[in-house]
């Protein structure tokens, strides 16, 4: 019982971290239609900036600087680069961010070298929030989860209760018309992009401390955030949340499955027990890493608009 609760909790918190990273991506895609390949790089930059700032400003200072710094980087990227390719369409934007992700990863190595850096959660935050049976549940995990939830609430309110969400959504398809109605579209776009990047920066500043901070962290996470966003439904915030949680719980739960694909299929009667033991002898527990891709493929085939995405008009 305790194990199940802990497993579920672990899955949920990991899911929330995934949401933290992918919320910015969802926001930028849903609002501006930019599929930002460099988003995971913003996550990485957040971690590195926070790491660099921690030495001077302490842990919390690092978190703040990581978040704001990446927001600023996002702002600069939007103003100096993305803005100029927008008129060539989304594919060009996608390519640009693809190039940026490439450059950012190398840039980090220029400054911080190819190894992981030492950016740990401070001793003062390493305590148990509560315990479930024998398991002391770490406070920092809870903090990550809480931040993600707060983030969701904040973005939700921003989009729901202010006109900004409407303006941005409208401006994606008809920027000129929105301008003609009196809105400063370019300022709003820049701001939105900065917020999206800042969210990734915050996730990086926290995730980098809890997990690791190394030059490959963007590549390792890059694809999975896309999976989250696609499964959730491109541009849907609540979809991203649901997808994050599903993926989080799934990859955590599958570890506990003590059977192989072969056995499973044999049990259903699809293949013979012989085949099961020889050809398909892959323990399901080993597939945690590829499960999200299977899930994505499945979702794309069955419900291409994702869990909560609507069919765009």
């Amino acid at each position, binding site marked *: 019982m305790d194990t199940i609760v802990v497993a579920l909790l672990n899955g949920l918190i990991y899911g929330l971290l995934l949401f933290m990273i992918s919320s910015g991506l969802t926001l930028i895609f849903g609002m501006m239609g930019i*599929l930002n390949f460099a988003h995971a790089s913003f996550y990485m930059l957040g971690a590195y900036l926070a790491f660099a700032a921690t030495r001077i400003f302490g842990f919390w200072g690092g978190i703040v600087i990581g978040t704001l710094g990446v927001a600023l980087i996002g702002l600069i990227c939007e103003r100096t680069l993305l803005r100029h390719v927008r008129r060539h369409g989304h594919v060009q934007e996608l390519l640009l961010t693809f190039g940026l992700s490439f450059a950012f990863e190398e840039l980090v190595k220029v400054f911080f070298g190819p190894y992981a850096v030492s950016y740990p959660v401070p001793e003062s935050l390493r305590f148990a929030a509560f315990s479930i049976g024998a398991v002391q549940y770490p406070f920092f995990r809870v903090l990550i989860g809480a931040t993600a939830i707060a983030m969701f609430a904040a973005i939700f309110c921003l989009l729901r209760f202010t006109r900004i969400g409407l303006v941005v959504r409208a401006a994606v398809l008809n920027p000129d018309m929105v301008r003609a109605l009196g809105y400063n579209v370019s300022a709003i776009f820049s701001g939105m992009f900065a917020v999206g990047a800042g969210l990734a920066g915050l996730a990086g500043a926290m995730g980098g401390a809890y997990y690791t901070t190394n030059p490959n962290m963007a590549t390792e996470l890059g694809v999975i955030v896309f999976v989250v966003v*696609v499964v959730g439904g491109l541009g849907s915030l609540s979809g991203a949340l649901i997808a994050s949680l599903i993926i989080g719980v799934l990859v955590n739960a599958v570890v506990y499955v003590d059977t192989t694909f072969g056995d499973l299929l044999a049990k259903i009667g699809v293949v013979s027990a012989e085949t099961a033991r020889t050809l398909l002898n892959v323990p399901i527990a080993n597939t945690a890493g590829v499960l999200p891709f299977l899930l994505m493929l499945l979702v794309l085939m069955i419900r291409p608009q994702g869990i909560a995405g609507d069919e765009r*008009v």
Partner: protein
Amino acid sequence: MSRIVLVLLGLAAAAALVALPALGGLATLNLANKIMIAAVFALGFNLLWGQAGLPSFGHAAYYGVGTFATIYMMDAIDRGGSFPTPLLPLVGAGAGFLFGLVAGWFATVRSGVYFAMITVAIAELVSALAQKWEGLFGGEAGIRSIRTNWGPLDFQSTGSVYYLTLAWTLVVLLALYGLQRSPFGLVVRGIRERELRIRFLGYDAHRVKTVVFALSAAVSGLAGGLLAISDESASMVLFGGAGSAFVVLNTVIGGAGVFLGPVIGAALTTSFAYFGSSLSHFWPFYLGVVFVVTVLFAPEGIGGAILARWRRVRDGTGPLIGLGDLAGLAGAVMAMAGLVLLIELTGTVCSEAYRAEIASLKGVWPPVRIFAVPFAPLTPWPWLVGLVALVGGSRLALGAGRPVLPHLFAGRPGPRAEQTRPGESP
């Protein structure tokens, strides 16, 4: 007039290519091989992207499958099977085609971003499978085989591999060019422009897209087959994201809208990686910057820029290389030099080795050698020079480029056509 120039250029290029083994060393030949393999791969990729407008971000899967299939066939030959060695790439092509047929059928159900994500998912799954299925893919060590001679033809030397690769590259070029010009190629381009319309003209768009996907996978697989012949080995590393990323890079830098664009891109980035990596450890960063700059200022790629100038000459609207181009080029070179200086300085000063050196010199900062020129990192001069070159060069390039830029953009659809259309995914 222009046609004659083109024919002459083509002949000169052909002569140079045929004579290369006599002129270049082993390393040059090998580089040429790798360029051609990358070019064939990029051409295959661009069949899907440039022609059908389908952006695949997981094309390494078909390339890798082609390599593995060819290695297995080479092994079969080595064990006494009979298959003509020169035709080995067809095995890769066949494997790529079959796999592409299945994957393409699934992927092309969707379009746009969704299509791209399906290709990524398929590539990731194949990559995972390759890691887990050691029996087939050889695990970490991979699998290997050896080229066997065929009849009087000897395939042991790099030179012979070069000619084989060259021959296949030409075959692929001709075939793809023919395909592009064929009525079927027209249908494919129609799908890129407006799929819905194509369907209302009576074409089964899904089937057409599946076939194009499979053809593209086949050409990629053929490139994989050429790689197998050249390297005589295959491993799961081939399925990694890097392969899929590089083919996109090659195509974009060269220009997806120009037939020879991918070839130009492949030649540039492959040589850049080849020479760059022995000059600086930060070469991938520079490549990334070149890529971003290309996307920003030459969305049609280098091939597109060349083509625009060629057209300019042909139509008599301007010289092949104008003053603005020269200034732009000079500015770009200057900016790049400044960037390289700054990055090399920063990278070296931040490196562990340098800090260790400082420690062993008891706090003295030794000069940083960049291309054998020593720079004193504690004085402001090298930094200032780098900054000035970077900023000044960019200004020069941008300012000078301004009248030139519209030409670069010449290939895009006019504003009227740019309005969003209903029924099309973003």
